[in-house]
């Protein structure tokens, strides 16, 4: 497996091999699914839309609906205006959403279709019926990554929908970042446990983790409503989780509606969750309270119980920048050694932040943005690690190098846990510890000599 990969490091300037990122629209599509009653629309050839829907479905194992402008050669010559207008008409007649969230693809970006103008015209000619809404985000894939696309669509929500009426509402906005429905659910649970009143957008819980009922709802119960996103302009403050996925939207809201923003990282592990919880408590004017403190205490207890198994273990981490930044801090809290940390997404802030985190505890760490899994694998061949953390695409490396592997991030195409168990918050950290300890000890149990095969660990 992967036997074309050697330890010899060669500088590549043009060839990307086994990318650790994908393209903007899939992130935009995912974000749009976090609006209640929303049909994401892909403005371009139908292949992109098909790929994005398929990949999201493989990850969530749930229906993922989106429409496409179905460009043909003609549209790529004359522009996609006619396609988009016709699409609006069909979508609102047949699928009847409250809102359509349009994102572009490489093709419509290169053509240079002016989406706001098309939306305007479609409202005028009735292709978008009165009372219905269309928003858009530009998501060219030759810039950034799927995380950028997510961020752009969240920013579009603010730009198009959020409004300041002048009356401040007793609520705090939470922009959760490119995380799982399970994580969004967990954030809501934490806030409720503290009696903090929040508005979260996007919110894909109860959209992409629906129950089996014998019914199919094209627009499930979940999702932030347009009214909620609108009201975000009147909130006390915004807590934005993750520099790459959420901060731009929070800054936009700050400048558009004067809602102060706290720019935090994803609440993964003890410190980052502490920061999230105290910020939320401060803004919402509530006490953290004993329930949350109990969870925190249980997490720290578990960390001390298992410290011996984690201490000093070398870890390779690949993933989206916000996720890698957050989990690396947690690994450091566990006194593990995240020696290789890469993201496929571009962004200097990633390397800067990672150095702040690692230069002290793990000075030997290799950190790289715009990297790929091929290079990470080469590093591992040069000096092995004890644990690999990354999305499903890491499984070939894990098998080749016989390294315990924890699936974390997007996409996870071959396992189920991500759909149910959060990685954010104290309970999320417990879940991560559980996964890590299991793969580490499973390997030991599988491979150690018989005399060292222990009943109790």
């Amino acid at each position, binding site marked *: *497996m*992967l*036997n*074309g990969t*050697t330890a010899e490091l*060669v500088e*590549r*300037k*043009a*060839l*990307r*091999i086994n*990318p650790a*990122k*994908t*393209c*903007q629209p899939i992130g935009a599509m995912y974000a749009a699914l976090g609006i209640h009653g929303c049909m994401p*629309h892909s403005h371009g*050839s*139908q*292949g*992109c839309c*098909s*790929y*994005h*829907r*398929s*990949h999201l*479905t*493989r990850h969530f194992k749930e*229906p*993922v*609906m989106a*429409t*496409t402008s*179905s*460009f*043909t*050669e003609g549209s*790529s010559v004359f522009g996609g205006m006619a396609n988009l207008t016709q*699409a609006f*008409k*069909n979508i609102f*007649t*047949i*699928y009847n959403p409250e809102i359509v969230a349009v994102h572009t*693809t*490489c*093709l419509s970006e*290169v053509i240079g279709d002016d989406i706001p103008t098309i939306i305007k015209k479609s409202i005028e000619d009735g292709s978008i019926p009165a009372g219905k809404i269309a928003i858009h985000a530009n998501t*060219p*894939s*030759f810039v950034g990554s799927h995380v950028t696309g997510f961020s752009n669509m969240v920013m579009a929500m603010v730009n198009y929908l959020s409004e300041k009426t002048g009356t401040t509402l007793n609520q705090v906005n939470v922009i959760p970042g490119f995380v799982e429905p399970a994580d969004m659910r967990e954030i809501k649970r934490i806030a409720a446990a503290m009696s903090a009143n929040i508005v979260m957008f996007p919110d894909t819980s109860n959209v992409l983790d*629906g129950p*089996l009922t014998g*019914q*199919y709802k094209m627009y499930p119960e979940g999702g932030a409503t347009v009214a909620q996103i609108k009201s975000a302009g009147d909130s006390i403050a915004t807590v934005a989780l993750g520099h790459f996925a959420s901060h731009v939207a929070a800054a936009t809201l700050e400048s558009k509606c004067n809602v102060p923003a706290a720019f935090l990282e994803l609440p993964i592990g003890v410190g980052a969750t502490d920061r999230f919880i105290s910020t939320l408590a401060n803004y919402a004017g509530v006490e953290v309270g004993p329930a949350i403190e109990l969870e925190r205490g249980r997490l720290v207890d578990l960390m001390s119980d298992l410290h011996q198994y984690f201490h000093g273990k070398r870890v390779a981490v690949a993933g989206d920048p916000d996720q890698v930044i957050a989990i690396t801090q947690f690994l450091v809290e566990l006194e593990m050694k995240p020696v290789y940390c890469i993201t496929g997404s571009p962004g200097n802030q990633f390397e800067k932040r990672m150095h702040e985190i690692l230069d002290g505890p793990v000075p030997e760490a290799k950190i790289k943005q715009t990297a790929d899994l*091929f290079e990470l694998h080469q590093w591992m061949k040069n000096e092995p690690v004890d644990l690999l953390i990354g999305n499903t*695409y890491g499984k*070939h490396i894990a098998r080749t190098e016989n390294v315990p592997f924890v699936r974390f991030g997007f996409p996870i195409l071959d396992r189920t846990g991500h759909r149910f168990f959060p990685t954010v918050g104290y309970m999320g950290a417990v879940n991560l510890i559980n996964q890590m300890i299991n793969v580490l000890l499973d390997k030991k149990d599988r491979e150690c000599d018989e005399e060292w095969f222990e009943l109790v660990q």
Partner: protein
Amino acid sequence: MSDLSTTPPEGYDSEGYPIPTATQPDSEAMRAEMLKIYPQKTRRKREKQLLTNNPETPPEIGANTRTIPGIITQRGCTYAGCRGVVIGPIHDILHITHGPVGCSYYSWLTRRNLARPKPDQPINFLQYCMTTDMQEEDIVFGGEKKLAAAIREAYAMFKPKAIAVYSTCPVGLIGDDVHAVCRQAKAELGINIFGFSCEGYKGVSQSAGHHIANNGVFKHMVGLNDEPDKEKFRINVLGEYNIGGDAWEIDTVLKKCGIHVTATLSGDISYEQITKCHTADLNVVLCHRSINYMAEMMETKFGVPWIKANFTGAEQTSKSLRKIGKYFDDKQLIDRIEEVIAQEMAALKPVQEEMRKRLQGKTAAMFVGGSRAHHYQHLFKDVGMLTVAAGYEFAHRDDYEGRKVLPTIKIDADSRNIEEIEVEADPKRFVPRKTPEQLEALKAGGFNFKDYDGMMVEMKKSTLVIDDISHHEMEKLIELYKPDIICSGIKDKFVIEKLGVPCKQLHSYDYGGPYTAYTGAANFYKELDRMINTKVWKLITPSWKKPADPTIAMGKGIDSPTNKTIREVVAGMAKAWKPQKSAPASSAEG
């Protein structure tokens, strides 16, 4: 196939299939109901693609036409059809996608074209996703230099035999000359390097990509090696992509019969096999849609005739084997084929019979691809199930109505921009595989070359035929027909299952398979039984929303009849308990 000289047993038709006992609703009414919601322009188009079937004179279907913007479709793009379907499975050449990162990312190991590394080529390149990952400056200033550099870097690291390059949408638009870059790289590096202009906006579906891929494979690979395999009875299996090991299953059966496969295009195929596939004696076409171009071109240039066959379904497998035997017209081979069929059917029959008992009377609908929606109907027929509705995702009229309509198909603008390559008989290498007399004799015996009658003639009257089914139509179909199972793809699967109907993915097989030939058929019947007869769907309604179930306590706790014995047991235990006299205040044991 059953022995035709005797009358079929009761409940079976003359071809040996069990007669389905399920009935179907009035399809004209259903059709109207499905189309009702559409705006006029959309409805007019969909009317041509949603028909009630008449097997005697199949109605004309508006296949291979554009998908209407805003309609939720199953279809993908030309790139997917080219890179993903036809060439993607070649495991020992290197595939580079020229474009922004996404297109290559999504086509990375997501199709289940399995491949076994060969001793002379231990690297399975399918595990590598390679792309030029174009950035804004490449879009603005052109990506040719980056592509050339990427090819060089790839060659230096992996030393492949050949490199294929695929263009995605933006590449065509900015006008990168992928072919010129490939030609230069080929001259510079001395290996076979070629490009495909398979931008996603060309054509109306994956189908255009198949055509482009066929052209490229034919131009750049087929015919490079004239050394035929030594075995007798050499065939190519065309349009078989080894999803879930299907090609291996077919290979096994053919081998048993003494038929040698020179190349399977393109399931688990090596570069070497493609380069010499023109030396085979016969092309056996399975997926007509994706590969008929190749079959035609190989015939014209090298004289390899082609026949249509199908290894999906037991009866169909036998029929196909016999057809191959007849073509070679070799007594020993024909006898051997009969022996194999007898052996395989003897093993399969009991399974088939048992599964028929569990499945007959059930209905199915299938919407997928360009041949499977037809081929898979045979597996359902094998066990007495009725296909009430079917359609392809990207097929053409000939796949529905049969090749006889080919001369009447109008070439529209979207098809016209796909290159038709001019092929002539090769002056040296064109070898007729049969003499005119042999051909005459074969024809006289009812043997047809290039014979594909399409899906509609084999479907029952008044079943629904739906091309490029939309999400809305799928939902309606379930509501109106309530099929017992639907075969479709990943994007529909969970919609269908939310509605309580099991969905078998026919692209990925839900990670099962193989489903070809006899063993595959048994696998599929059992899979159907598992999916249709599972009780998991019955768990949807909680007990408190159902009429009282006497076997469940229903909140009556220990008083319920089932708990009666428990009540007696615990009551006995309680009675038997005696307090310990003078229990010590603290444990004295330690």
